[in-house]
């Protein structure tokens, strides 16, 4: 194990999901250890370009750093398969698609499967062009049901893992301190991942009693995932 991959697991939070050892990474992804599967969601590539095309002057090409981060995780963890749980692209196949293709070439050997999200408005036939497999949902090892929108139902015995929500919690400290943190939201039958992309926005959730919240304290290589209660 390299020093970097050591650090990745040190900063992560270890948890058992449906009998499987998993790491909740401070890079806002989940790594299933025995199957070597990397799960992440909501990159929204092309969001900044979309803004710019509509005349809103946000900085361009922020998404390169999201892909760099994903590349870093792939290099360090060497996953067999990577599942992106939807919203890889912000508006259909957009202007940053070349950016993605270029990146994809550098990681040809890794299988990447996209579970289609509500933002991914393009034909499944594009999968070849992008070099990824595209599915509506997927059952992994008879343990996990991977889909984009969490939904209100679940299959018996399966844990639904999804994205879409961009969950975050507001934490309070003494002296009127507050901070909003992206989080993993785990309830009885569902795990919702935080948005992997940087320029994506967050939705503050109101968890129910019994839910578990794992907040992501971002800070590059020194970030951390901690459970809060």
């Amino acid at each position, binding site marked *: 194990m390299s020093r970097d991959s050591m650090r990745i697991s040190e900063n992560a939070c270890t948890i058992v999901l449906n009998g499987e050892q998993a790491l909740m990474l401070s890079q806002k992804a989940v790594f299933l250890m025995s199957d070597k599967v990397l799960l992440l969601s909501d990159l929204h590539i092309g*969001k*900044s*370009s*979309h*803004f*710019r*095309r*509509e*005349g*809103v*002057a*946000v*900085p*361009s*090409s*922020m998404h390169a750093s999201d892909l760099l981060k994903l590349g870093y995780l792939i290099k360090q963890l060497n996953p067999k398969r990577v599942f992106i749980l939807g919203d890889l692209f*912000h*508006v259909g196949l957009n*202007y940053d698609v*070349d950016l993605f293709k270029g990146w994809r070439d550098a990681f040809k050997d890794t299988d990447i499967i996209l579970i289609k999200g509500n933002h991914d408005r393009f034909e499944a036939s594009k999968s070849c062009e992008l070099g990824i497999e595209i599915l509506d949902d997927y059952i992994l090892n008879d343990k996990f049901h991977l889909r984009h929108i969490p939904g209100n139902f679940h299959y018996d015995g399966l844990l639904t893992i999804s994205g879409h929500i961009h969950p975050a*919690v*507001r*934490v*309070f*400290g*003494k*002296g*009127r*301190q507050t*901070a*909003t*943190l992206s989080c993993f939201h785990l309830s009885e039958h569902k795990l919702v991942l935080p948005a992997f992309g*940087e*320029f*994506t*926005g*967050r939705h503050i*959730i*109101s*968890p*129910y*009693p019994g839910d578990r*919240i794992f*907040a992501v*304290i*971002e*800070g590059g290589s*020194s*970030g*951390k995932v*901690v459970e*809060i*209660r």
Partner: protein
Amino acid sequence: MKEISEVTSTDRKIEDWFTSKGWTPFEFQREVWQLYAKGYDGILNAPTGSGKTYAMWYAVIAEHLNADTKKKKRKNEGLKLLWITPLKALSKDIERALKESASDLGIQWKISTRTGDTSASVKAKQKKNEYQVLITTPESLHLMIAGKQHEKFFEELLCVVVDEWHELMGSKRGVQVELGLSRIKAVNKKVRVWGVSATIGNLKDSLTVLLGPGKGKRKIVKAEIEKKISITSLLPDEVERFPWAGHLGIKMLHKVVPIIKQSGSTLIFTNTRSQSEIWYQKILEHYPEFAGTIALHHGSIDRKIRDWVESNLHKGKLKAVVCTSSLDLGVDFYPVDTVIQIGSPKGVSRFLQRAGRSGHRPDAMSRIYFVPTHSLELIEGAALKQAIETNYLEERQPVIKPIDVLIQYAFTLAAGDGLDPQKTFEEVKKTFSYSDLREDEWNWIMRFVISGGDTLKNYDEYSKVELVDGRYRITDRRKSLFHKLSIGTIVSEMSMLVKYMSGGTLGSVEEDFIAAMRPGDVFTFAGKNLELADIREITAYVRKTKRKSSRVPSWLGGRMPLSSQLSELLRVKLGESVKDNVKEIELKTIRPIVKLQSERSHVPGKNELLIESFESEEGHHLFFYPFEGRLAHEGLAALCGYRIAKLKPLTFSFAMNDYGFELLCDSDIPLRQAITNGLFSSELLEHDIMQSINSSELAKRRFRQIARISGLIFQGYPGKYKTNKNLQASSELLFEVFSKYEPENLLLKQAYDEMLQYQLEYFRIRAALDRIAKQKVVIKDLERPSPFSFPILVDRMREKITTEKLEDRVRKMQLRYEQG
């Protein structure tokens, strides 16, 4: 009195009109007419209800009539007079007054109002130049400029009057006026510009800000009309038993009610919306006989309900109205003869403005009662009286070079007849606000507008403006509409509508307040007990209930700091209060408290800074009393904490009010050592302040408004919750993204500058340190808290001094979140 040199037939006509009304023109009105006729620009300094409207109106009429006799009448006359006012509510009143006198004089001018409320069909007529007089707001002026062929519109304009200029001058709306005027003057060299302003501390500056730097035919005309004001402080029965802290003032209710009873109609001003709700509720609870004759008025109550309250005030049907700054401005209510101010007004001008809302009948006196909410505020009563006697009023600081407003203006030009970068640069440089705009700054703004900022990509698709016929234009109709909908600098907080299940809107409250409630919960709003029934999107549905609740929504903002002027006089009065021969009743009344302060500690004189040190179970407390207003104290507290903590590792929490601030620490504080090491030094001041506070968090708050004004965030169509979901981004996210990817962005820099200037009142911090440098520092060790320290000690609003990164802070935080 000056001689009236020439009396023309026109002047006589106007004098006759005055005579027919039984009036004689005031000296100041004649002075304005003469100066105007000689081609002067200027400021008319006159109070409301003094005839300032007619002073300006007849100046323009006279020019028009005199021109008529010389030139032949033309058929289609264009716009002659543009009247800018900050308040839509005022425009109707002005329109009425102008129309009346125009018809008396037989002038065939069409007079109309153009504000955000004007219907599309009327606007279309106005565009065709059918009107000779338009009464409008700064925002609507910019909308005119965003229209096609706006230059033609201003060609025949004789005069622009900017009403209530003192109100506009200190805000970004004032900058909008400056920009609008620069455009009009570029089109029409002859146009005259007159501001109408109440008295402010820097009247001379207001002339330069309105007209731009430079000299020429410009003058300030003062209406020497003495408005008589009677100021009375309501005194507690026993000052010993009057609270040392607090801001509600309900204890004085029994003193306030007799005044309401013996007056005709009373306005009761409170400082916050929640305070007004509480006062309204308490009056009715203890004096139910007022039911139906008192009302509540504040900015979050629905416009229709407020209109109802205002019209009943006019008709004299209301005995009293509990209100906030929502009634500071606006049309005069003739039946109002008494004003009550609950708690510190925080500024002399505000107090005077509020006093002036009473006594509008001829020769009537403005009558105001000051109600202290805690004992030390009594001294403020004495300070207020002296300030008004000596006319020591606050200055309005103009907003300098706001980048966001200029970006919005650039897009406004692009939406209209197109933006010519060089020409516009020369034009805006003539305004006061942008007179020292540098070329590199302008180039950055142009890059932002034209190519979307500094871009690294070569296949960038940024588009908003296009170069057509040598000018940058917004050619896309949808983008142009989006921009026009976003013109303006007033940013509303995210709020939820409060509606009855059966229909009818009550007003709006902040989202966070409703978010913390569940259906079935009861709260008080708009003076009613309401049960939350349902929440749908941005609407909270309620029904009336008999159940009572002490839950009152609180709204962000509104906590104004004590002004420099009032603070200064407060320091003077405090010094006087220890003398044996005090005359003022307020100072006499507070004697026992002042005595107790000198027994337990010390009462600082004008040339002293008092520091109190005190130990409790909580730890070591230090109290500093610079009397510089709560915002500057926040910065000073953080600064002192930071500088002390450099001597030895310490963590402080701090609290403050308008008089002083407190540092609290779990271990001994090396105060004396810190003072010798330059605790109050103004060296490296900005650096140390930026280090001591969580500057990015504070700047992020300022960025919200900036992002919205500069068009980074589209707020959506009026009345619609969300639009174009793919274009949603929060200002917080944008702030983070800019900080990381474009740190040299001028809008980011503006956020930090605004934070220093408005959030922390940096200039007052500097002034306080300069003063302290000359003062004697008096340190007192206390055994028990002093009357000065008590209000700060019990203040629950505490801040922490930290230079830690977010991640470290979060790790230390006691992690908890709200459960749904």
